[in-house]
């Protein structure tokens, strides 16, 4: 039996920050991470090899629904921060105020969050590109300028040397920032350990049962006792673990994501940088629609055209002049996470409303409009029965017959698996992440957000996690 004061399950942005904060405050901290520790740069960013090594189920995860939504979760030390685009938005004060009112969340004003956000921005070296952005990013800027739409460069957690261009930055992921800090402050970080369930007695978690995976495949049972348990395994795995442990009230019933539609655009000149993503986003329709650029290696371009790749084979043959773009939306609809007996992975479903479907079609139209305004020669929306558009006029025809069920949807932003708030009828935890009905069980990751925020959420997730750590350390919770 292993004993520790504080056990943190998961080492993504929420878990890594929690580990650093609590260890630096002199607490005894142990972090359990299911995946491996992979150094930044070991895999080509956004490659199929990276997907296999650092994504849960190698990226083969889907929320069932009509249409289904493919989602991806990071797996390994650092979680999603190791594989995402690194785009940072400071928590939106208006949104925080709105959440505080609508979901009865205490101490969630800009004043409560600002100091935490500033510390995170400093640690992660948040900044804009000192040199040139990628050509694929300029496309967004140019299209928006032509249409008179608001667009801006989104800062990233990236260190740039001198006047480096966008693709030459060094990502400041959790394995480069908060996890080393936690370790330096005395935290122990165990990788390759999957938590199977939490054992509860009354209002307390009295034991954590896990399995250590050895290199030869041998599964070693591990039992841990901790005074406090923080579950930080992400918006899907956190509720799944709680459900497996018999904690079900308002757990896994309100998953919120930003479904994305995608399109490939082809230009006269080279635009593609496979190892990087564009940093510009169109904010004209925020927070309902946000338009930006995706990783665009030939495999990802082909994937966006599947199952019609062979019809548009010139796109990948000539991949340097093509790039992939997305329009992300907020939804009224919500998803469910269901941990099923005997299964390792939960069943995830997502129900889009009619209004969500219309919004997604509208988002696709806006994005295609932007790409033609930026000078695209052809645009290929990622839909079933893909089409090639040559002019903005083709868009009108597409808009008339495009149905939500035709859209190929995916998402990388997963939130709200165990929402916070004082309203026990709706929230899974209190305003600071303590699970309702428990004294020593807390959630501190993207699960807490009551909604998907309409922007890249990592900054908001980390700022709220930092605030919760401060509340925990102050002994108020």
């Amino acid at each position, binding site marked *: 039996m292993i004993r520790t004061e504080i056990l943190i399950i998961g080492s993504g942005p929420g878990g890594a920050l929690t580990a650093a904060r609590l260890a630096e405050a002199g607490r005894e901290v142990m972090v359990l991470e299911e995946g491996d520790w992979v150094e930044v740069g070991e895999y080509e960013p956004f490659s199929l090899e990276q997907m*296999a090594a650092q994504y849960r189920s190698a990226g*083969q*995860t889907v929320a069932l629904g009509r249409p289904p939504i493919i989602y991806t979760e990071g797996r390994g030390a650092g979680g999603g921060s190791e594989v995402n685009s690194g785009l940072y938005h400071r928590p939106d004060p208006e949104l925080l105020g709105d959440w505080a009112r609508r979901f009865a969340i205490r101490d969630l004003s800009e004043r409560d969050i600002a100091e935490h956000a500033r510390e995170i921005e400093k640690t992660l070296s948040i900044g804009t590109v000192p040199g040139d952005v990628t050509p694929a990013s300029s496309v967004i800027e140019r299209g928006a300028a032509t249409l008179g739409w608001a667009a801006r460069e989104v800062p990233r957690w990236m260190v740039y040397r001198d006047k480096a261009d966008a693709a030459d930055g060094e990502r400041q992921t959790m394995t480069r920032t908060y996890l080393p800090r936690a370790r330096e402050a005395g935290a122990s970080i165990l990788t390759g350990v999957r938590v199977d369930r939490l054992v509860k007695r009354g209002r307390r978690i009295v034991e954590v049962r896990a399995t250590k995976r050895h290199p030869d495949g041998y599964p070693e049972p591990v039992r841990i006792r901790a005074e406090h348990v923080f579950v930080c395994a992400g918006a899907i795995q956190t509720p799944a673990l709680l459900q497996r442990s018999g904690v079900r009230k308002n757990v896994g019933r309100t998953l919120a994501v930003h479904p994305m539609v995608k399109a490939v655009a082809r230009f006269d000149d080279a635009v593609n940088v496979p190892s990087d993503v564009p940093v510009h986003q169109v904010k004209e329709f925020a927070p309902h629609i946000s338009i930006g650029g995706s990783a665009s290696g030939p495999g990802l371009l082909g994937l966006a055209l599947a199952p019609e790749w*062979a019809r548009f084979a010139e796109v*990948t043959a000539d991949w340097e002049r093509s790039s992939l773009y997305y329009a992300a939306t907020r939804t009224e609809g919500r998803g469910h996470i269901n941990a099923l007996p005997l299964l390792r992975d939960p069943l*995830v479903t997502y129900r889009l409303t009619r209004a969500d479907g219309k919004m997604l079609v509208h988002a696709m139209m806006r994005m295609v409009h932007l790409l033609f305004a930026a000078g695209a020669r052809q645009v290929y929306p990622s839909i079933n029965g893909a089409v090639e558009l040559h002019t903005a006029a083709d868009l009108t025809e597409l808009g008339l017959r495009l149905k939500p069920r035709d859209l190929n949807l995916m998402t990388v932003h997963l939130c709200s698996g165990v929402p916070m708030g004082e309203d026990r009828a709706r929230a899974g935890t209190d305003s600071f992440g303590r699970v309702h009905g428990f004294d020593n069980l807390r959630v501190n990751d993207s699960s807490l957000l009551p909604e998907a925020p309409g922007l890249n959420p990592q900054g908001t997730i980390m700022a709220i996690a930092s605030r919760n750590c401060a509340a925990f350390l102050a002994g108020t919770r």
Partner: protein
Amino acid sequence: MRALPERAVAGFTDALIAERFPFLDADQRESTARFVVDRWRVASQPVQLGTGAVASVLGATAWGLAALGGSDPDDAWRTVVQRLSDRMLPGYSELSLFVVSLATAYAADHWPGAAAGFTVAAPGSAAR
């Protein structure tokens, strides 16, 4: 010895790739199919169970055809895939999309120009 669903997914994948990716040579098709089955093996369990169940039903059909007609199992798989290729059957659509998406990602990544110059017939019919 591979389990039944995995063998069925492998058989289906070989046949579907042969039909949809005729521009790949035999080695390319083989490594693409291997990639798809490897990814299926690590897919989330609901995805694995759903697609594995559908593939197993199709596999039983293919093996039945082979046994009754005395044909080669690979030919039987091809017959099943060709018969179903333009049908939107529940489960089948998801399975074929799973295989084609993964195969496309892999093939486009490794041989981005492989399909260029290839004339594609109407969706659902065999490409020439």
